[in-house]
């Protein structure tokens, strides 16, 4: 009797706190990184119905349904998780639960119209596992399949919605050595196929050989107002991406970019951002002989916009560590914070992600420096609502943390 009463109370309080916090939430004494490259400042943040209303030095007299005293802890916009298959890949090697790629469809065509968003599952366990670590959005990728063009995706927000996509349509193109080796036998073959496919966009007739009519429409639309993410690591490949994009009037983004520092000036003058893994410092292939830890720092110094990706989906939460290592190797702290918060939204055309009036209240209160491995997200806030901070993994911990298992762990149901 008493036990069930306890659970009922807990349920009610959970519900009420949920709704109350959705109205007016006040965070005081935050050490706030607003999401650009400015240093942290002592600020209070007032949130009204999911939107940031005021950010100011002292809002302590303002009434709110819920007040959180951050006690000097760092507050940031919720983070970008990198280019992932979150919600597309439940378990890496359980292929029937992986929906991020197109394979074995031997039509001979490239299929830019292949859209991974159709397969996105916000109920995947990966989403809360990632969200409780301070991440609220990601760029959904069409993983390498067996074509030069993998398909399309866009930003997705980890708010539980089935249709929480944002920003520009992003087409994924592979021009590196390993995919070159699979498709047509060389990277030169890649460029030949790509060039031919894009030439078909300018031809009026429907006698297409490399893309279908819907693929043609997809590419045309993406050329108008979408983005092309090229996977390329070798300096010469990156250089070719710039040339190709100029010729076909595309907005390119480099993904990988291990040798991007060698063509930093060209990237800067073309205004092309690089999404990189700042931990890459080994010549994993002949495309990455120039991989080095200060790649991000060198690019930033040259005026190139740098974003991060870890190449991980399940462990996308590692991206803070990636950014921290970039800082440890010379990137300015502000640039790393911007790259983890507002910049990806800006680059990929999503809603602005800063702690500023009028913007959505997606924020995190951190136990310490958000770019260091010795800190964690204390509280994630999405749309002004306090996240439950629960995931399948926190449940497993709660089941196995008690030293006394009683009748067995199966009876410990958090």
């Amino acid at each position, binding site marked *: 009797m008493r036990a069930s009463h306890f659970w009922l109370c807990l349920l009610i309080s959970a519900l009420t706190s949920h709704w109350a916090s959705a109205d007016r939430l006040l965070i005081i004494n935050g050490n706030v990184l607003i999401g650009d490259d400015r240093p942290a400042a002592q600020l209070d943040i007032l949130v009204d119905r999911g939107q940031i209303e005021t950010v100011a030095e002292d809002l302590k007299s303002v009434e709110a349904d819920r007040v959180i005293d951050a006690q000097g802890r760092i507050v940031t916009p919720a983070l970008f998780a990198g280019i992932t298959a979150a919600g597309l890949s439940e378990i*890496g090697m359980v292929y029937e639960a992986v929906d991020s790629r197109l394979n074995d469809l031997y039509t001979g065509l490239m299929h830019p119209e292949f859209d991974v968003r159709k397969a996105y599952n916000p109920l995947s366990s990966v989403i809360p596992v990632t969200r409780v670590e301070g991440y609220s959005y990601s760029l959904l990728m069409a993983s390498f399949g067996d074509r030069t063009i993998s398909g399309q995706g866009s930003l997705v927000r980890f708010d539980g919605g089935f249709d929480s996509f944002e920003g520009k349509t992003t087409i994924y193109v592979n021009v590196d050595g390993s995919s070159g080796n699979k498709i047509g036998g060389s990277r030169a073959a890649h460029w030949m196929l790509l060039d031919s496919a894009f030439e078909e966009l300018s031809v009026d007739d429907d006698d297409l050989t490399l893309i279908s009519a819907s693929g043609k429409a997809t590419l045309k639309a993406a050329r108008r107002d979408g983005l092309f993410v090229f996977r390329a690591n070798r300096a010469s490949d990156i250089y070719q991406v710039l040339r190709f994009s100029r010729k076909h009037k595309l907005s390119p983004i480099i993904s990988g970019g291990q040798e991007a520092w060698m063509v930093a000036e060209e990237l800067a003058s073309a205004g092309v951002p690089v999404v990189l893994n700042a931990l890459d410092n*080994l*010549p*994993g292939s002949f495309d990455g002989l120039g991989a080095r830890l200060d790649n991000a720092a060198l690019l930033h110094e040259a005026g190139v916009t740098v974003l991060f990706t870890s190449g991980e989906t399940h462990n996308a*939460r590692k991206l803070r*560590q990636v950014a*921290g290592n970039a800082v440890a190797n010379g990137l300015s702290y502000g640039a790393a914070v911007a790259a983890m918060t507002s910049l990806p939204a800006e680059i990929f055309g999503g809603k602005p992600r800063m702690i500023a009036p009028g913007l959505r209240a997606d924020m995190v209160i951190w136990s310490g420096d958000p770019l*260091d491995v*010795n800190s*964690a997200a204390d509280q994630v806030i999405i749309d002004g609502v306090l996240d439950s901070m629960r995931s399948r993994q926190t449940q497993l911990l709660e089941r196995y943390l008690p030293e006394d298992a009683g009748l067995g762990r199966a009876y410990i149901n958090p």
Partner: protein
Amino acid sequence: MPALLVFLITLLGCTAAQAQSDAFPSTYAAPPAQPILLRNATILTGDGMRFDGADLYMEEGRISWIGEGDTAPDTVVVDASNRWVTPGLIDVHSHLGVYPSPGVAAHSDGNEATAPVTAEVWAEHSVWPQDPGFPRALAGGVTALQILPGSANLFGGRGVTLKNVPSTSYQGMKFPDAPYGLKMACGENPKRVYGGRTQSPSTRMGNVAAYRSAWIRAQRYQADWDRYNKAVEDAAEAAADDGSGASVASALLTNTPPRRNLELDTLAGALRGDILVHMHCYRADEMLTILDMAKEFGYRVGTFHHGVEAYKIADDLADHGVCGALWADWWGFKIEAYDGIQENIALVDRPEGGCAVVHSDSDEGIQRLNQEATKAMLRGNRAGLSIPPERAIRWITLNAAKSLGIDDQTGSLSTGKMADVVLWNQDPFSVYAKPLQVYIDGVLRYERGNPDLNPQSDFELGQLLGATQ
């Protein structure tokens, strides 16, 4: 007559010993080391202690003292104020050299995936000493590491423990007198690789049947050798008595040694405990099955590797004295890794006698074992366990040395141990921490920012010169 007998016995004895002989021996010899004094550092000893503002003295390649003591006149004094000192880091699970960079197909030498039992292969015969991953790991503070075969097979072969020193041969890196490891694998990988070829094993029960069959053969092999060695011993005793010399000589000549078998050499070595068993195993239930099997055949499992569910059986592991070599946060890449939690390492560390080890299995992770340990420490502390740095550092030093059977020689800063030492720019439990100096046997092998002490592999030499000309 007795002289001939003694000769014969010696000859046979040599043949017998050869079966377990020191093949491919280490040629590593530490160069002469100057006496070094690291002054005024925060020192984590690796065995649970912390000293603040303390001095560490190394002499003749060995740890001499922490605190106060005599120093030689030619001592090099390093100001370590505001710096931290730890033992050299040890990675118990690496594939450097056998899956080197660049990862081209012709470099893929880590899995002899042609039969489920390949205990006869030795990882060292695949190690490419020019893997640029070795010097990168050195810059991350790694002074010793075990190179293991992959996990495609039930018995993948022998692992080798190396000193992380540049050399043209693996023999020049081989950790003197370190025991060999035997790599075994549970679960998905072997059954996928062989089941996919409609070959045994294709199930977990097939896995266990095949391990047991192999152990039975190894037991028989060991028994044959024991019987033979006993006969040689008896003959020696009889010869010493100088009684029935002639008949003993003829008995010896007809009693030929068992035929040597490379696969069973390794398996029998594991049964005897000379070779340490390193078992790739993710699921809690499978690890318990393996512990029962070890009991059946009378051997010890030294370390479970990966063990993403080790936290579910932390007490069992501690009771059996088995280490868990684990990742800080990997999960979900296959279904046997679905229940991974970030508190795994801290929970395996919790019981009395728990032996938690942070391993990399990665050419990236091995460069940042301190960061991996930091994440694990953080999660333990957030779960309410109290884990200070002097405790967590054991996961990448002494516990790792224990897992490799080299804890009497390295892994902590005890007097007399090898002077394998890292000087850090700050508290190592941070993303901003970097090794400033790395000593192996008291010899400065790496120094941050010093081009003379940043070794580079042959492979990387002269690359990308086109860009500068």
